């Protein structure tokens, strides 16, 4: 079966502005989701390794609970599950101010926070234990040692897996269309609705996601080069044994 491609549907009519709006919304939800995910991930990842048991349990509970439930369920949870518990006035205010967007941000941020936590835990655990012991012996408290020594080193070590997670977060933002967020995938479907040109719309979405993800990967690679501690990854580990 042959199919006649008509790429002009992507820039005639409103398609172009929809795609741009879609990219902007995707970037917006991605940026806010990433902020929450990083904040939660760093805290929970660090707490999972501290020598204080209740804090470790708390962090493990968060990670296991949020990581092991599908993102789609979290989207519905934040959109349909949370608002009914809020006072009526706050509900109305939320419903008038794009609750679907903020529900999407929470779902992405909290879910990916749990995944980031594991990446950060792995980073911290790859740092020789002697580092922590040495920093404690200089008179730092555990909190100071984590804040000044352990977490800054761990964040450098985890850049490659964190790139993975970041790209995943961007792509997973498309799940927000199930609660009505008009992000990039939503807009490609919209173009399909108006033009009945599914393949062109899908191809445009594919290329835009590819560009966005490649941009993230190259930014992360740049950061990795900039903040690298010379010899850290290779020598740090041999030094441990």
């Amino acid at each position, binding site marked *: *079966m042959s199919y006649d*491609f008509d790429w002009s549907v992507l820039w005639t009519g409103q398609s172009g502005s929809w795609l741009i709006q879609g990219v902007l919304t995707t970037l917006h939800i991605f940026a806010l989701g990433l902020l929450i995910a990083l904040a939660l991930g760093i805290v929970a990842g660090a707490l999972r390794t501290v020598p204080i048991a209740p804090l470790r349990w708390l962090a493990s509970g968060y990670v296991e609970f949020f990581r092991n439930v599908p993102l789609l369920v979290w989207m519905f949870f934040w959109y349909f599950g949370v608002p009914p518990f809020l006072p009526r006035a706050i509900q109305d205010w939320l419903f008038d101010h794009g609750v679907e967007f903020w529900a999407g941000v929470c779902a992405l941020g909290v879910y990916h926070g749990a995944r980031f936590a594991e990446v950060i835990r792995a980073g911290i655990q790859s740092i020789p234990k002697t580092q922590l012991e040495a920093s404690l012996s200089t008179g730092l408290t555990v909190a100071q040692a984590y804040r000044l020594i352990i977490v800054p080193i761990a964040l450098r070590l985890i850049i490659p897996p964190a790139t993975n997670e970041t790209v995943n977060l961007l792509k997973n933002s498309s799940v927000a269309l199930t609660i009505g967020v008009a992000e990039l995938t939503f807009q490609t479907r919209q173009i399909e609705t108006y033009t009945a040109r*599914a393949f062109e719309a899908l191809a445009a979405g594919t290329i835009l996601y590819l560009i966005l993800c490649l941009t993230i990967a190259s930014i992360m690679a740049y950061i990795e080069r900039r903040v690298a501690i010379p010899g850290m990854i290779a020598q740090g580990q041999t030094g441990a044994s």
Partner: protein
Amino acid sequence: MKRSIGFVVGAFFVLALTGPSRAQSTLEKIDKSGALTIGTRTGSPPFAFINRNNEWVGFAIDLVEQAILPALNKKLNKQIKLEKKESAPATRIPLLTSNAVDLIAETMTDTQSRREQVDFSLTFFVTGAQFLVRKGSPVKNIESIAGKRIAAQQGSTNAKIIREKVPSARLVEFPDQPAGFQALSQRQVDAYTNDGIQLAGLKAKAPKPEEWAIVGEFFSYEPYGMAMRKNDSDFRQVVNVGLMDAISSGRYAEIYEKWFGAKGEVPYPLTPENKRFLQLQVVPK
């Protein structure tokens, strides 16, 4: 640069679309495989849905089984089986063009822009967009939705019309009916818009049907047709003859009564105008 990317992606999809065999007519394909594959919905009562007994049934499926299959059997002179696959607004045209299904039999509105991609059978059901609201809601029709939060189905013609006619309405689009209805019942939106018959289906299935009202004149015209691959008039002829025979023999009316009659899944009497419209589509033998 833009052109070369377009070309690469185009080539990719063309490869994906071009099967090993050369263009083969749908009738040849059905004759060879012995099966007619339709794309239909799982959550659009009463047109096509999974019922309480976990059976995939509905008005559109009955029409295919009792009107189109007999016509195919007669044309090909053998018993043709029916196979069903799930389709959705975003996937139904690609399903057809990629040969995954031969016929889309669900709640697909026949439109001019869709006719550039696929061919349609004659119209087998007529409806139009309305609003589902909580009883006593200030939303009465399309004139009273300015500034209100309105839920619609993604990829529907209704969302398109609201966006054009009432840009001040806050439109939230959900991929499926249950999510839109959930948003309405939690008061996250003031009204849910869809084709009148689908709203009637939702209302009938709601836990407390008496709490809900379907309001407003039809603000769009939604003629449902069955879609098939473009430029395959032999197959389209069989489909249309099947539908015409069903309408003139009274078979259509029986199936209609089963699903939309007083005892049906969603009571929705056939108006005299719609009955006349269906009959006028039947051309002489």
